[in-house]
């Protein structure tokens, strides 16, 4: 059964001020209702004024997605009543959006390139934020913070071109990557991305899932929906065309039926704003190198593999970081950034922006000059990252190596350890002598443990073999 998915993605543009007033968008660590003014509070008589930068950012996206910018676009009022909307309407764009008809290339589930069509992008204001104390559904009232009210959102609407929950996630990852390359979006900010997904199984009615606020959430919500809808169809129950809410914590969607009022937004052109005529700005916009181009350049310039190039260019911050450390040795740097550093950062939910590139380059030099083993290098890296994560002053990899005695030891230093290990494990030695070669790995592992990974395992294997074969233990 073919899965058909289309997305409506809302991203916060990282302008300094809100879409229609000069309130700062830097509200995340601040008290509620401290970034508001008569405009974003919807006080009578206040007049909105369009932020030029927000329009420029929207056009940058339109150009990067190869879209047609409308000769004339306009803002409209979407009327509905909800406490997060102080004016009783949201200023958005309706039948004349900023731009239409674009594409984003992603990989399908078989690894082939495919195009996802972008229907439109438009600008709109973010509503306020509702807080429910005393745990979600049980709270009897909503607490409203209007700091978010009026933050510029770009809504990006796709055609129903996605064919699986995994494709939907890849689409979002790619979109985020492009938006961050364009410098219009910061995906690390809490709540910067929200997604509504339309999903149906071919031949059946579609369901809209709202309230998805993470990349992983999209895949989870859609996977849940595919299973739910397939089960209904199998039991002969028709799929109801409805809106459902994603409960992130429980990984399920629940029906919003009954809660949902009839949709009658009574859109009309916003009388307080003049139209936009900005199609001719597009030619003057200079786009930075985008992920696909950078991936190809990385392969050509640094000679790294497609897989590494793809991993390293997915996130603009990672790509910038790689280019700062590649001078040590491009291949070594690619391996250590893509295969090791990213995993360690992910484990700590830490941004690469916190890692000093010069220290990482020094660590690469230690590895390249064979001063540390790979295993010791990982240990040094972990200490570096833990210090950065804790906000402590960074310590150079050499200093960490010396402080923790992680430098590669010469063979002679191990003789005593090897002897002690062999004496402590006569059974393993006997097994080895009777032809069970696997026993050697066990013994080497024991020595590695004692040396805390400072020894090169291959060299150690040689020393241990030699010792067993020349001694009488």
């Amino acid at each position: 059964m073919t899965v058909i998915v289309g997305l409506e993605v809302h991203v916060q543009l990282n302008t300094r001020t809100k879409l229609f007033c000069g309130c700062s968008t830097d509200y995340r660590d601040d008290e509620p209702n401290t970034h508001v003014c008569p405009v974003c509070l919807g006080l009578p008589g206040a007049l909105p004024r369009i932020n030029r930068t927000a329009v420029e950012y929207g056009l940058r996206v339109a150009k990067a997605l190869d879209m047609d910018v409308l000769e004339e676009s306009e803002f409209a009022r979407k009327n509905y009543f909800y406490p997060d909307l102080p004016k009783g309407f949201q200023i958005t764009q309706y039948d004349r959006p900023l731009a239409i008809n674009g594409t984003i290339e992603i990989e399908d589930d078989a690894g082939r390139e495919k195009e996802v069509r972008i229907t439109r992008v438009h600008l709109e204001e973010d509503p306020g934020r509702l807080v429910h104390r005393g745990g979600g559904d049980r709270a009897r009232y909503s607490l409203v913070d209007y700091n978010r009210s009026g933050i510029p959102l770009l809504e990006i609407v796709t055609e129903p071109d996605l064919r699986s929950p995994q494709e939907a996630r890849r689409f979002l990852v790619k979109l985020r990557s492009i938006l961050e390359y364009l410098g219009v979006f910061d995906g690390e900010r809490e709540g910067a991305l929200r997604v509504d997904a339309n999903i149906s199984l071919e031949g059946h009615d579609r369901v809209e899932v709202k309230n998805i606020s993470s990349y992983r959430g999209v895949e989870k919500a859609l996977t849940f929906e595919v299973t739910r809808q397939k089960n209904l169809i199998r039991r002969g129950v028709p799929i109801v065309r409805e809106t459902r809410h994603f409960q992130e914590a429980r990984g399920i969607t629940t029906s919003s039926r009954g809660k949902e009022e009839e949709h009658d937004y009574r859109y009309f052109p916003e009388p307080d704003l003049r139209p936009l005529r900005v199609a001719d700005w597009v030619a003057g916009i200079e786009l930075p190198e985008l992920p696909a181009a950078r991936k190809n350049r990385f392969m050509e310039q640094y000679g790294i593999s497609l897989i590494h190039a793809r991993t390293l260019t997915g996130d603009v911050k990672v790509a910038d970081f790689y280019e700062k450390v590649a001078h040590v040795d491009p291949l070594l740097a690619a391996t250590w950034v893509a295969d090791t550093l990213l995993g360690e950062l992910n484990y700590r939910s830490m941004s690469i922006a916190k890692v000093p590139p010069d220290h990482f380059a020094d660590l690469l030099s230690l590895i390249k000059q064979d001063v540390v083993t790979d295993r010791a290098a990982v240990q040094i890296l972990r200490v570096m990252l833990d210090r950065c994560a804790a906000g402590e002053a960074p310590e150079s990899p050499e200093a960490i190596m010396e402080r923790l005695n992680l430098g590669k030891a010469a063979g002679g230093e191990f003789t005593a350890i090897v002897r002690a290990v062999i004496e402590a494990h006569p059974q393993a030695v006997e097994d080895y002598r009777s032809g069970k070669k696997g026993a050697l790995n066990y013994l080497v592992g024991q020595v590695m443990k004692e040396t805390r990974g400072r020894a090169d395992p291959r060299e150690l294997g040689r020393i241990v073999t030699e010792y067993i074969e020349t001694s009488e233990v």
Partner: protein
Amino acid sequence: MVSETDIEHIARLADIGITPEELAEFTSQFNAILEYFDILDRVQGAETPTPELSNVFREDEVRPSLPQESVLKNAGSTEDGYIKAPRVM
């Protein structure tokens, strides 16, 4: 002309209950307001916005926001800097 059915619909969208007396009253008030606009529409030589005017922007520069206590002044009920509203779900 606005009918009582329109007013009932609008009241439902706004999630407010109205009595039959209010329904009649609001309907006539809505129509009175619309009549004023009819008069305005007939005024000769009144200024209309310049149709060709477009691209009215402000620069992306931060301006001071209101102090929290002023923001909360109009709220019926508050808690820890938030405005308290009935739960809508």
